[in-house]
């Protein structure tokens, strides 16, 4: 990827996002009391200023991209394809693990969810030490539970099934 194409892409996204903020998000999701007479003191003023500045930066990025003379790729651009042919699938799997963690935390409890997440990630990252990974998957969440629950006094979620002391 070159700076020109990156700025073109970012400029389009920033400009569209600014439009979305001004036309939809701020009027819909920012509430101002009806008795505010002066716009400068309104809760909507600051978001509008930021949306305006985002639009200006978006236009500047587009201008920068459209007037750039060269289209040279970044020097440190990743040229070799990552290990295996499925980097996007690994990213997707990690996203699924994160979603499952959110579902698991209130139901299974933090310790058991963390154990499963640890093991799943270690295998997703193709660890060369599967036994060590499984041992760590059990020990690390337990140690963290011991610290946060018994030293820091945090009420770690226990879940609906197995409760720890």
């Amino acid at each position, binding site marked *: 990827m070159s*700076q020109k194409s*990156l*700025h073109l*892409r*970012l400029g389009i996204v*920033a400009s569209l996002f600014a439009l979305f*903020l001004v036309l939809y*998000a701020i009027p819909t*999701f*920012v*509430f101002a*009391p009806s008795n505010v007479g002066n716009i*400068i*003191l309104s*809760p909507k003023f*600051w*978001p509008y200023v*930021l*949306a305006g*500045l*985002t639009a200006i*930066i978006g236009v*500047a990025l587009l201008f*920068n991209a459209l007037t*750039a*003379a060269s289209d040279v790729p970044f020097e440190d651009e*990743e040229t070799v394809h*990552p*290990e295996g042919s499925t*980097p996007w699938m*690994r*990213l997707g*799997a*990690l996203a699924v693990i*994160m979603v499952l963690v*959110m579902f698991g*935390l209130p139901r299974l409890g*933090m310790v058991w*969810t*963390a154990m499963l*997440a*640890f093991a799943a*990630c*270690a295998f*997703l*990252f*193709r*660890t060369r*030490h599967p036994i*060590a*990974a499984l041992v*760590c*998957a059990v020990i*690390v969440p337990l140690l*963290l539970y011991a*610290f*946060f629950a018994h030293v*820091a006094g945090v009420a*770690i*979620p226990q879940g609906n099934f197995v409760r720890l002391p």
Partner: protein
Amino acid sequence: MSLMDSLAAGFSLVGNFEAFFMLFIGLVVGVVAGAIPGLSATMAVALTLPFTFSMTPINAILLLLGVYKGGIFGGSIPAILIKTPGTPASSATILDGHPMAERGEAGRALGMALYASCTADAVSNLALILFAGWLASFALNFGPPEFFALILFSLTIIAGVSGESLLRGALSALAGLLLATIGLDLVYGTNRFTFGDPNMMGGLNFIAVLIGLFAIPEIIAMAWNPVAHLGRTRALGKSRCSFADYAKSFKSIIRGSMIGVFLGSIPGIGAAPSAFLSYSEARRTSKNKANFGKGEIEGVAASEAGNNGVAGATLIPLLALGVPGDVITAIIIGAFMVHGLQPGPMMFVLNVDIIYGLFIGLIVSSVFLLVVGSVAIRGFKFVADGPKRILMPGVLVLCIYGVFAVNNNIFDVGVMFVMGWVGYIMMRNRIPAAPFLIAFILGPLLEDNFRQSMLMSGSDPSILFRGPITWFFWVLTAITVFAITRSTLRKRVPLS
């Protein structure tokens, strides 16, 4: 309160085993984390933060400062041994450090890196002690318009210099400012972007955002390429750094320390530019100019002095003005807030014991760094060879526990995951995360001071230019924008 009284108050806080032990542990954690490529000093400080919740404020902040200082030095170890900087600030150390390692002089290079780091750290701490109090007493005269102009200047320079492009940095800062508007309005208490969710009414949790931005993207990056971290570790070799080596490089070390202090005290510049400037100055003035880049020990000394000289100086704007000098001090400002402290000029009045306790701890940290660093150099092989594909899942689990512990709220874990993906997208699109986080912290302050100014003046914007202090910061902001824009335009039009 006299200086002696302040010092005595500081000693009463840190004059115990626990405080110094925390500082020591912090340095160990920082050096180890800095030495592991992929675990930056920033990530180490962010991940240590949740462990400090149950500590006293002084112990908590000493622990984090230890991680910070240890992390900056620790980054030089993989830079020299495997040509991979542990932190961006160590990039300049590679230039001469790795060629020395290839010649079998890694032990000598690492020794010099350690001595230069400790010397620069001591100089930087001294600068902090000398200047922070003076700057704070000056800042006591600041009102909302002055603070508005100061924060605007800080954001401009942070957006401009913390990445490759002013526009991308500004976009990042604006995104941070926008995210900071989520929650109840500061004056009227009405909802802004809360979508009716009570979890969002207090705004997004700072620690969830910062861990999401700085730790989770590294885990996602490992999913993208699980073998990116693999490299070849060089042996230490038999030669060691001698006193003659240190004496020969002393001038460059002191010059680099001064450069670090100067650049570190300006919000946003950070350690990497300081290290490169120190390196280039050393090369320009050295008798061995031709050896630079081929394994010159003075080059290692200069770059390490440059990046460690920043460590104490970045605390000057943090403690005196309440403005973080870089992303790590932005995390440390969060630690102050978690413990009910508000850095800034008033802290020198209300919490002078903590300020002087920190100064004492920082002086001791330079000595501890020497001890921890010497051991770390020898033990690096074990750290570098640790399986990263087990470490990263451990980091994920630590993030989940740490973020939950802030408010006992699972919603914060979700915020962290979302911010992690945002951070990863920013990383892939070369948008720096530092302006985002610093703007997220400074955003409410910026808006609050702006609206207070408008309330004071009856909405007359001329109050923002009301005196020499505001003019000073407006002129600095204009000069910064002009200088960065000019350098950007020069890069676009190559001179023939």
